[in-house]
């Protein structure tokens, strides 16, 4: 048994760093820029002669003027005021799959042989990266059971968007696009599902959970019609409850002539245990940076993948990567394709990491991820539910998959301390703040932990102990929790109205100075 440190005497770095625009002195330089050689200058002349008069910049941009060490130090300090997964037990960001991102992968994406590739290089000079992308496509097919993959999407949401575009392309070709203008989703699926559907002009029908916490199947029966284009659904949803009637959901929609799209954002507990194809889905998507362990980079870059069954293969986002037995090539010549989603070909750094990750684990390792993330989650739930004021609504006694939606409702009613207060207080214990829920909040005072397979038993024990301590504080000294955090990088409370009121809101320093 490892040593579990309870109630660390934590304090985040607090540098009280000035704003960069106010640092430095005129004339200082952080980096020098290569200059054209004299022979070149002789031929080309002065830049002032080269640029059209009307376009010449009149005033130099008021960028900071700082020397190199000072730039570095400033940003090093800011990095210390940020809690990444590398330095904390990042269990709180449920649905985000905050797993360890192997450091060896970082060496791969920093190879010159990758970083310095231009996307329009001749295919013969990019066989290495194309091979990795091609193999990723094959692995993702195996994991989902689907028949065609596109790695174009820049992230999970864009992959969902690609699936909605595919839905439209499919019905357009069948001459049913006008009629089929409704997409059904659930309120506990990721908001990108209704979001992307409405971006493309679909009406959205959102199903709410029944008393068991699963989407109401009777409501689905009432919702489907000849106007149904598709069902877009996550399983498990954010509650972590596995929808054991998922096959029936799919069948109901298929009978009405609609397509079924599986949002695999919560894939981590599913690897190798069940596949999109097994439940009858026509399409699914991956959040590659989540499930396949790319560092989340302060919100990106991530990458997504779109996967479809045979009958939809011709519609996927172009280009795809193909192999003719000798060489790998980009296939942009796909006339029925929904087209391009982004510039060039997806986000290759994430694709390299996903490749390395799958190769490290193999079939049994992938399944082990699912098993351990399920085991971890149910263990953590058990520990957390010993805490007074915290409960897990819906489906009592039933095991959860890889995450769970809990509720502090009881604690809030008894102490006035809300989940948002606890979310700030947990930072004082050395943890990143946690994910509550999407909006509108289906459950009151939500908290959604996801202890993925990379966290140890000791990590989970420490994590649960911190919440137990906070709950105790809530009952004995609620003001303490409400006033938190005290030990975070920012040692003062912000005036919220600066973010909400016109006249006080600024997105740049120059705009702030004018207020």
């Amino acid at each position: 048994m490892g040593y579990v440190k309870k109630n660390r005497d934590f304090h985040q770095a607090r540098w009280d760093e000035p704003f960069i625009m106010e640092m430095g002195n005129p004339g200082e330089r952080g980096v020098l820029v290569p200059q054209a050689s004299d022979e070149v200058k002789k031929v080309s002349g002065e830049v002032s002669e080269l640029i059209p008069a009307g376009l010449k910049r009149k005033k130099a941009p008021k960028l900071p003027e700082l020397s190199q060490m000072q730039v570095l130090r400033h940003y090093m300090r800011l990095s210390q005021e940020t809690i990444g997964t590398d330095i904390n037990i990042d269990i709180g960001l449920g649905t985000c799959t905050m797993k360890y991102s192997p450091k060896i992968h970082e060496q791969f994406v920093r190879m010159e042989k990758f970083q310095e590739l231009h996307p329009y290089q001749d295919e013969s000079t990019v066989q290495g990266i194309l091979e990795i992308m091609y193999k990723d496509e094959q692995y993702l097919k195996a994991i989902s059971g689907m028949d065609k993959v596109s790695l174009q999407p820049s992230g999970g949401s864009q992959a969902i968007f690609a699936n909605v575009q595919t839905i439209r392309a499919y019905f357009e070709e069948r001459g049913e696009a006008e009629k089929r203008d409704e997409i059904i989703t659930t309120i506990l699926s990721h908001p990108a599902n209704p979001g992307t559907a409405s971006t493309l002009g679909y009406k959205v029908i959102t199903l709410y959970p029944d008393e068991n916490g699963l989407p109401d199947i009777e409501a689905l029966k009432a919702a489907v019609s000849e106007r149904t284009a598709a069902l877009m659904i996550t399983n498990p949803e954010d509650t972590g409850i596995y929808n054991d009637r998922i096959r029936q959901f799919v069948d109901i929609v298929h009978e009405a002539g609609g397509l079924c799209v599986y949002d695999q954002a919560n894939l981590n507990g599913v690897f190798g245990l069940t596949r999109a194809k097994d439940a009858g889905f026509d399409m699914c998507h991956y959040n590659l940076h989540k499930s396949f362990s790319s560092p989340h980079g302060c919100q990106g870059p991530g990458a997504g993948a779109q996967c479809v069954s045979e009958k939809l293969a011709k519609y996927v986002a172009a280009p795809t990567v193909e192999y003719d037995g000798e060489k790998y090539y980009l296939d942009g010549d796909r006339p029925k394709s929904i087209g391009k989603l982004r510039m060039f070909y997806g986000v290759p750094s994430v694709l390299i990491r996903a490749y390395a990750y799958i190769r490290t684990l193999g079939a049994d390792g992938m399944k082990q991820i699912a098993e351990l993330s399920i085991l971890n989650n149910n263990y953590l739930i058990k520990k957390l539910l010993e805490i007074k004021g915290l409960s897990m609504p819906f489906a009592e006694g039933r095991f959860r998959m890889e995450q769970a939606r809990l509720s502090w409702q009881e604690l809030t009613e008894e102490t006035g301390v809300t989940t948002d207060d606890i979310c700030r207080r947990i930072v004082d214990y050395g943890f990143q703040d946690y994910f509550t829920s999407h909006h509108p909040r289906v459950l009151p005072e939500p908290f959604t932990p996801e202890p993925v397979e990379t966290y140890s038993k000791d990590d989970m024990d420490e994590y649960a102990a911190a919440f137990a301590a906070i709950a105790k504080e809530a009952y004995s000294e609620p003001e303490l929790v409400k006033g938190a955090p005290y030990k975070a990088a920012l040692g003062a409370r912000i005036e919220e109205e600066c973010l909400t009121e016109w006249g006080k809101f600024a997105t740049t320093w120059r705009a702030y100075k004018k207020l």
Partner: protein
Amino acid sequence: MEKIGLIVNPIAGIGGKAGFKGSDGEEIYREAILRGAVKESGQKALLAVRALKAAGAQPTILTCPGEMGARVCEAAGLAYTVIEVPGAEVTCPVTDMPETEAGETALTDAGCTTAADTVYAARTFLRMGAALILFAGGDGTARDMLDAVGEAVPVLGIPAGCKIHSGVYALNPRRAGELAAGYLQGKVRKTKEAEVMDIDEEEFRRGRVQSRLYGYLRIPDGRGMVQNKKSGSRYSEQGAIERLADYLADTWDEESLYIVGGGSTTAAVMRRMNLANTLLGVDLVYKGQVAAADCTEQEILETMDRYPFAGVKILVTVIGGQGCIFGRGNQQISARVIRRAGRENIIVAASPDKLLSFLGSSLSVDTGDEEVNRYLSGYMRVLTGYGEYTVMKVSD
């Protein structure tokens, strides 16, 4: 310094403990006292006022004499200003009597003060510039507040009555105090409309216990700016209502007759259409005009007869704690009207917040006609945003 009004209905809730459905009426009050009930509304108000103080708010408190507020402030150790309430006897509690036929509130023969005192006090506080009026009571007290100030000033209920169907009350007394403090300190800045529901006395006299929407009060909206960390979705209840109103306006069928039920959500739709609206009544809209306002059942049926409409649509929202779509605030849209319009022509519109409070249960209908109730039961679409729907179960 901000001013806050405080009104305590001293006998609110007393009937409940003694096994009555309410505390209205002196007989119930006396009987309750005989059964040994203890007046608790003062205690509840005290909890709220203490929470207000603990949260660091230091408003000028305007209140009523004795049990109507002054004693509570005394007990909490807070300074206060007492207004004079004519006719209020310190020793005689206020009751909220049902209105008489004439619509006047009757004084009981014992000479006790009445609902009129609540009304008087609330109006006085409003005149004195109170930023918020806190009141302890139940549904009856909420109705008194509605009569007194309507939406002229934000109010907030401290739950103390036996019947709390109205949405104007905080979750518990302490939350009421905290929310009031937050509002006075500027931490909570928004307000929202909340329903005032109470037993329908007309129906009650006919022997049916049924609640009814009496109107709306404005309460502080304690929910913070809802921001989503991870995704681009944005959300606010008001935004959802505006968007569903936009959608209805954009898809409005000029050739159909619209029968628009009462409630603030349907009112938002009418506002969006630039049409005058009866908040608690039924309006008829045809070709972009209000064809008839505040209609009775008979008027609706006659209008339906009069024109050769291409279609008839009924637009209603979800009202009250039982999630009623027919029978609370739109009784005029009767079983006969519904039969003639047809189920498929009913548009139900409500915000997701409202619907989520019925999670795991269902919406309800109470048209007074069992057959029509059955006809309406089953699953029904509810419009929740711009082209966004959900499907809710409706029980008869």
